[in-house]
């Protein structure tokens, strides 16, 4: 199996261990895989050479999403020579990380060549709406495996470019009243970045007070969240299943090896069937 890793960083001052951690993961969990790595550095300085990987400069126009676009443009048609593309950011080893070591060759074999994206499924307690599209769950985009065909069909990993329609420019009420973002989604984003989180008992490690000075960062971070959601929506739109790594590891560990391939169940079912950190299905299910 061949995997192309597109590792996005913003200079090397932050998350200094990320690249070593990623390589340790590759050695530990995927020793048989042929890895090629392209680093896209979004930092303002000229990127420093890194042994064992090609480094290119990213535009940072849409953070990691435009960086992956930059990386894919650099690789060009060669991307089709890979079984999977591993999208990684330097923040991959933060927040919930237990799913990472569930990923191994068996999981990747299960998804390679199928219309699937493998990673960690996060969700909101309620459905939200963005640009008119309904959504509720998404793949954490800091560590996700996607077949090249799906990336080629997406065209760009940037799915939301609507800042002028979304943001008001007023830190006391950062979203325009008519923004194509449902009210509950605005609240989730605001609470995640500045306050108590999204009602799931987790808070963000870098939350901040929203004021005029921090407004640009708020907007950029919100756009990254929206692009992460849009990535999930657009993948579903093209028929690409979101597969939760913990669920798939559970499934492969319990099902007979001779069982034929099955369609991947709905994300709610996947999350309820995780062997660790399961999320109960709502009673109506």
């Amino acid at each position: 199996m061949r995997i192309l890793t597109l590792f996005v960083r913003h200079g090397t001052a932050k998350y200094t261990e990320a690249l070593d951690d990623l390589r340790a993961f590759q050695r530990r969990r995927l020793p048989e895989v042929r890895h090629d790595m392209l680093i896209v550095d979004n930092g303002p300085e000229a990127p420093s050479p890194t042994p064992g990987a090609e480094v290119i400069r990213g535009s940072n126009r849409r953070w990691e999403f435009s960086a992956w676009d930059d990386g894919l443009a650099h690789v060009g048609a060669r991307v089709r020579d890979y079984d999977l593309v591993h999208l990684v950011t330097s923040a991959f080893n933060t927040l919930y990380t237990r799913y990472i070591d569930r990923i191994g060759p068996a999981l990747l074999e299960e998804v390679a060549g199928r219309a699937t994206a493998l990673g960690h499924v996060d969700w909101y307690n309620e459905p939200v709406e963005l640009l008119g599209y309904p959504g509720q769950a998404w793949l954490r985009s800091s560590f996700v495996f996607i077949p090249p065909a799906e990336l080629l069909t997406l065209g760009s990993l940037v799915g939301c470019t609507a800042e002028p329609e979304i943001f008001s420019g007023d830190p006391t009420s950062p979203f325009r009243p008519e923004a194509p973002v449902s009210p509950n989604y605005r609240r989730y984003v605001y609470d995640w970045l500045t306050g108590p989180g999204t009602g799931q008992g987790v808070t963000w490690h870098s939350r901040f007070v929203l004021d005029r000075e921090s407004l640009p960062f708020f907007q950029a971070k919100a756009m990254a969240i929206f692009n992460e959601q849009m990535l999930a929506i657009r993948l579903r739109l093209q028929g690409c299943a979101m597969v939760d790594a913990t669920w798939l590891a559970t499934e492969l560990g319990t099902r007979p090896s001779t069982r034929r391939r099955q369609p991947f169940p709905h994300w709610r079912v996947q999350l309820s069937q995780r062997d660790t950190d399961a999320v109960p299905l709502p009673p109506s299910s």
Partner: protein
Amino acid sequence: MKRNGGEEMSLVGNVLIDLEGRPPSFARSYLADLQQQLGPANLDVRWRGGELRDLPPGARLLRHPSAADSITSAGLRAAQGGHLLVLLAPLLPDPAVLHALGGALDQDPLVGFVQPRFGNALGDGVWPLPDGPGAPREALSRQSLSLLPASYLTTEQLAACILVRRELAAVFGQAPGGPEDFRTAFALQLVHARRRGFRNLVLNRVVVPTPEPPEALYPRLDPSSRRRLHSLCPDAATAEEWFHREPSHRRERLVSVARRARSGSRLPVLLDCRGASAHHNGTSHAMLGMIAGLEAEAPRWDLDVLFGAEAGKYHEVARRFPSINLLTGLPDGSYAAAVCLNQPWHLSTVADLHHRAATITFNMLDTIGWDIVYQCNPEVEKAWSFIARHADGLAYISGFTRDRFRFRFPVDPGVSEAVTHLSLDPAEYLNPATTNLPEGEHLLVFGNHYEHKAVGPTLDLLSRAFPFQPLRAMGARSERSRNIAVLESGHLPEVEVDRLIATARVVVFPSWYEGFGLPVMKALAYGRPVVVRSSPLWRELAALTRASGRLVEFSVPQELVLAVGRLLAEAPVEVLSFGGSLGPGSAPPRWRDCARRLIELVERTVDRTDADRWLERERTLRLAQL
């Protein structure tokens, strides 16, 4: 979405589902899943089985004996709000898909219905649109999705998931005596909608994954239902024909073949060698050399090689290349690439390859056929103009040929080009049976009877200038003088030709115009002095070879006589220097290197496969009625 009064309503408020024949337990579970997936929506379930209890809220069973009544009933509900989603198979479309389908209805007010594509939830593929009975139902590679246009606007087509515009659903209805079968009745509604001016939009990048088989996703009416539909509306058959003749079906299949789903997949390639004759000539030699190079290079191709039966037998292709799949008739299959190893003489040759392959590449040997007119059919100008504009790849056996072709037929920037050359390695021209033979007495004039080969005038000149020098001539029509022996070009055994060349005191190759000049390379390989008519070609080739022979140019007859005289007298002559374009220590290109360049070119065309380019070519060929 808002109605005229401004009241909010859901985009897809109503779903008509055909669950006839499904077990009750399946139907219950499916309807619960569908309700969860779609949220609040009216589910109208066409159902003719037994009791079905515990339905989710919003679901109602349509038990009308008449299919038309069921459709009318669901349509009337749709009129109350939202478009009507019709599911002919138990699918669970993602809400984002429904949003996209609904949004597509806004693209044009006369798009009446929208349908997604269907993916195989158990594998990699996307099911092709129905292409008539008996057409292949092999799933398309998902890599091809990115190359398709965002949508197709078609005539009506039954599919397992269709979103019907609310205004159309609201007038669903049927006169008494209409079809009783649900699908036929629904198909009839689509026909009437089209008659009102509404078309069907297929969204190519909106995909519903499902384990359902393609037969369930694109249901075909049984023959009696089709006859019934066609008797009610004869234009339904016309619309069907329009749908099936859409070039998109073939385009999708070819693009899919060109896109390897996973790394390691082999590329299906057709090598067209129908231009080889059943005798020895430069074209056949070049083709056989290229095939040998391909065999040695062993690209990740599934290679089919097409020869005319007679030529294949004459050149013993099957014996020489046991590993290749030899064909002697045009195949029916689909290929990622087709490569014609000689220039096409007819547009029909181009069409043959275009219909079978996503990309087409032609190997241009020379342009002389068009230049000299008299030996060429008038079609050739069309064929070459066409490939200069519409081919995916053009290979040239020399930079000289490339420049001549480009000057005569300006090449579109979308055409990938490469000069592959033919082998320039002397070792590949030597026959062990004819090496190390002692030099003979004869001077060899090489060519054939075509006027540009200039064999006749050269013989006249040399026999007058050197009346006691034995001359042998390949390609002259008659023996013009006592010191001339004429040999028929083409049918002499190859070993005899080699012997003539290997033992000649001097070889004269007086052609005005060559694309490469294989006999020159052979004579140089045997260490013979070769006199050629001055051309940029010889400087190009000399710079890429290191041979033991000597290459001498002449421009006018006097220079030819002088050069031959000095060579016969073993006096110094001005020769072209060898190897100027070869780096230190680098060897001249072998057949394998030429094949590698061809492989790179062909794979580049496949990498650049542009479904629109194929379609443009198809449209142009259709205009030419090919």
